[in-house]
């Protein structure tokens, strides 16, 4: 796996993403270096979730193209792991935390092959990295909300992706989970895994990420935080919701109402 990473990069060229035939994100062009940490920001309904869904093939790309490792999307899906804002799973489903994390390996095996030792090791490593190895045999339904989130992050790690997409991982989670998530991002940077994180926390975007992609149903700006968070760009993305105080721009923008995934354009 590390050998391939040398030229791992993500390129979007004039990409339009549609939901039910209507475009939700138009003409987006940006490039991401291999191993970069990218914050995807923008107001509610800007198309952040839609961008991620397009990257894993859950929403169709109606125009343009997405290249990963210089190859078109879909040729190597298991290189991309995606953790949705809210996992819509039945918490009473009879599975343990380990069962859930092992599912991240199902794409790597043939149709009829059972998960092997490598898969179990990868699953366990994911659990260890998220600090929940001790919960491996616990039924999923017995975990707290934050622990569940960490289990799903561990599953994404078990996929051993080259590109990891985290949709709003910091919204409505407890402090230990936020810490564990940030710690995981540091580890992944050392391994050269490219990470895209959508967030409403502009401070975090500016301080912990080397690249920011600012969206509002199209690309407003992409580049280093200093370059992207200019008053013009912020005004363009957030419109009248911005308050300029001296040299500072204040945006009161929080989580989608009720966390019900308004961002997801009802999907």
């Amino acid at each position, binding site marked *: 796996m590390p050998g391939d990473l040398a030229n791992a990069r993500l390129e979007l060229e004039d990409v339009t993403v549609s939901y039910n035939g209507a475009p939700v994100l138009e003409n987006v062009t940006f490039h991401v270096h291999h191993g970069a940490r990218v914050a995807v920001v923008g107001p509610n309904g800007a198309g952040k979730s839609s961008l991620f869904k397009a990257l894993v093939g859950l929403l169709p790309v109606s125009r343009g193209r997405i290249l990963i490792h210089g190859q078109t999307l879909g040729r190597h*899906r298991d290189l*991309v792991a995606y953790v949705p804002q809210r996992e819509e799973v039945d918490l009473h489903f009879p599975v*343990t935390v380990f069962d859930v994390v092992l599912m991240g390996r199902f794409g790597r095996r043939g*149709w*009829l092959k059972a998960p092997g030792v490598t898969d179990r090791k990868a699953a366990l490593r994911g659990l260890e990295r998220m600090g929940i190895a001790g919960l491996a045999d616990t039924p999923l339904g017995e*975990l707290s909300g934050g622990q569940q989130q960490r289990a799903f992050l561990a599953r994404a790690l078990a996929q051993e992706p080259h590109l990891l997409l985290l949709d709003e991982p910091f919204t409505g989670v407890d402090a230990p989970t936020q810490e564990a998530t940030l710690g995981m991002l540091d580890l992944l940077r050392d391994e050269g895994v490219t990470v895209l994180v959508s967030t409403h926390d502009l401070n975090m975007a500016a301080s912990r990420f080397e690249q920011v992609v600012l969206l509002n149903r199209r690309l407003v700006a992409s580049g280093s935080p200093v370059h992207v968070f200019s008053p013009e760009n912020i005004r363009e993305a957030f419109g009248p919701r911005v308050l300029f105080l001296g040299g500072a721009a204040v945006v009161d923008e929080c989580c989608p109402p009720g966390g019900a995934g308004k961002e997801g354009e009802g999907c």
Partner: protein
Amino acid sequence: MTQPIHALGESLRWLAEPLAFDFMQRGLAASVMVGVLCALVGCYVVLRSMAFLGDALAHAILPGVAVSYLLKGNLIFGALGAAVAVALGIGLFSRRGRIREDTAIGILFAAALALGVAMISTMKTYAVDLTHILFGNVLGVSREDLWLTAALGLVVVCTVLLLYKQFLLISFDPVLAKTLGLRVELLRNLLLVLIAVTVVVSLQSVGVGLVAAMLVTPAATAHLLTRRLPVMMALAAGIGAVSSVAGLYLSYSIDIASGAAVVLVSTLIFVIAFAFAPRRKLFEKRRGAGHRR
């Protein structure tokens, strides 16, 4: 001293007596197979909230049965054709969420039932066979039926076991299944077909009216008792088999309809499990709530 030995001999005799009859042996074999098969497939029916589907499929096979009755063919094949057609129809209508699955089921189930009734109403004589289809007649299972049940059942069990990983993933987290490149729609339709085959195979032992109970009750009972899917499947299969055997003996000894007896026994097991399981579930809930906020 002789009393217990006598009692033991008595109960052994009671157990062995029905087995002297060929039809009873075949019936027992058929109902155990059906009990296990239904319970296994029923785990997915319960976990995917498809109880309504099982019932609907059972009723929807009526036109298939009517056609094979008119053409004097094997009722099982007619029923199978109709069930698979309806299962795939449900998959087609509810594809990509155009209409909701339960709505699709409601429409197709009623339409197929109406078609079946319409066809049957044109016949002059549709004597015993048809009532057996409706309420089951496990004691009328022929040797040929038994082989057919075994063959179809084996195909279903093997498919469920071989595709365990896939069915688990599309049932638990279809979004991940899609991003991992699994053919979610195809697998969903395959599962519908497996349920359809199971329903048809079960007709002879429990009948159209009661097959849904065999799909749902043992699996729901097992769900109360465990938090692991493989354990749930094994438990459900065991409960299905025990219900079938006990039900058949009950039916023999107090002379009631066999399908009804099997279903009543499995319901009794469910009620007992339910009475003992709540303490654990309540406990888990309280602990979970304490953690959360």
